[in-house]
């Protein structure tokens, strides 16, 4: 029971991070039907942005409270990562739109390699640590020497995720920009006939997805305390798995998928073997693709015309 509760808390935390990254995959797929394989590395770069700004704020500007420095670093990381993603779309994807389907996919894999190699050269190949930003835990219950605890870090991650998802949901459902995005997703040609600048809307979709990935990157940095140039790959693929599991193209699906992958991974680690946690997560991807290719909240292929 205690292990279950503890792993539930850990799983929701991890799942929040995956969910934030998964939204970037699912939105881009929804609007241009492309799996953006560089998104995981964009997430990794955002963690480095957060790290650099965090250290700058702490040492040079002398902001004493780590949590404020972290929040400021996160906001800057969101802006810069959005800009990065905007540039990537302009340089590597837009010129290939209207080309054969695999072209942007290959370009995205190339972009992913460029980003991780650039960080390896620019930041070095070792783990980059940060001093602990937030300490402290709350003991929820204790029995037979096993305490179920929730750390402040975890509370922050879940809260920040919830707030940003709510804001994001509002933008997509209620604002003109969100309506234009959904219109482009459903019928790009018709959206253009109604005066929507489709290219600009696609760019903004990339920017929004990347900003959420930057939130995930900042939270990841705070949670684990280190970041490494290759850290984009596994979280990126897991978030992609989350998007597929939830139903690619569906926003609530991405969040649900993220939470599920986080929970599967932590429960597997808690009850079976921590070494095989990635195997558990990716087996889910294989099973979903075989038996439920549209995912949990994805829509069926057929639609009334």
């Amino acid at each position, binding site marked *: 029971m205690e292990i279950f509760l503890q792993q539930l808390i850990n799983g929701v935390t991890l799942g929040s991070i995956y969910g934030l990254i998964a939204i970037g995959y699912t939105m881009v797929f929804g609007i241009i039907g492309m799996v953006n394989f560089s998104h995981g590395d964009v997430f990794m770069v955002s963690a480095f942005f957060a790290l650099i700004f965090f250290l700058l704020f702490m040492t040079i500007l002398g902001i004493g409270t780590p949590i404020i420095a972290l929040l400021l670093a996160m906001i800057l990381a969101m802006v810069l990562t959005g800009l990065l993603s905007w540039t990537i779309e302009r340089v590597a994807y837009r010129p290939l739109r209207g080309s054969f389907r695999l072209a942007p996919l290959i370009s995205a894999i190339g972009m992913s390699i460029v980003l991780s190699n650039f960080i390896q050269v620019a930041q070095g190949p070792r783990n980059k640590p940060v001093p602990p930003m937030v300490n402290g835990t709350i003991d929820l219950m204790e029995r037979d020497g096993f305490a179920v605890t929730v750390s402040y870090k975890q509370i922050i991650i879940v809260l920040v995720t919830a707030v940003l998802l709510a804001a994001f949901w509002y933008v997509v459902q209620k604002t*003109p920009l969100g*309506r*234009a995005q*959904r*219109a482009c997703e*459903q*019928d790009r*040609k*018709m*959206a*253009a*006939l*109604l*005066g*929507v*600048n*489709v290219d600009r809307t696609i760019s903004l979709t990339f920017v929004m997805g990347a900003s959420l990935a930057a939130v995930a990157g900042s939270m990841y940095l705070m949670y684990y305390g280190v970041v490494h140039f290759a850290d984009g790959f596994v979280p990126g693929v897991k978030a992609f798995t989350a998007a597929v599991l939830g139903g690619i193209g569906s926003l609530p699906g991405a969040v649900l998928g993220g939470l599920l992958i986080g929970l599967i991974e932590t429960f597997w680690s808690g009850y079976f073997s921590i070494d095989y946690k990635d195997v558990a997560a990716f087996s889910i991807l294989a099973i979903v693709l075989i038996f439920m290719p549209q995912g949990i909240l994805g*829509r069926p292929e057929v*639609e*009334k*015309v």
Partner: protein
Amino acid sequence: MSATMEGPLLQVRGVKTYYGKIIALKGVDVDVKRGEIVTLIGANGAGKSTLMMTICGSPQAREGSITFEGRDITRMPTHEIARLRIAQSPEGRRIFPRMTVLENLQMGAALDKLAYFDQDVERVFTLFPRLKERIGQRGGTLSGGEQQMLAIARALMTRPKLLMLDEPSLGLAPLIVKQIFEAIDELNRTEGLTVFLVEQNAYHALRLAHRGYVMVNGLITMSGTGRELLEKPEIRAAYLEGGRH
């Protein structure tokens, strides 16, 4: 100044459009003047819908020119053409299937950032009361006739200077066709709305329109007032005999 005001609202000259290597329009000339209802009739595959989409820049004409209010729009991107207030209810209706009726109408009004939404939506609900009953329903779940009404209503929400309708009667019950044609006629008479109408339903279209063009295989073969065309034996033979609705 006077040239732009007195010339036709829309002028299509020698337009050639290709799909890859296949030529769909072989040099088309069409004029639409302010306040007119102009119809384009022709058989399936003649290029009618292609002409409408070419005017909207999707695909763009490879040769020839298209001017709107005296301005060359041949190479303009589609969304900028739409911003000049050329609205289209396209072939296949192209309702956003996972948006509600209300959201579809909001997309129409997006150009003005919904500034006139409340008054305009009341106006289209007067024209198509059925849409008001369906306001919260997703576009994809509407019947064909309702989708057609929604497509026209969405085009009207853009406050168009030129309304282009691609086969508004397609697949609809005669009573609804009658309603839609009456609505077009009323908008034209009361508000001076300029309409360019593509139809296979030649009899109704020619009766409604001031002028008409006949398209065969990517070329305009005949033109004249609606009445003149209705009386031509070739037209009667090709488009009307046995097809009197």
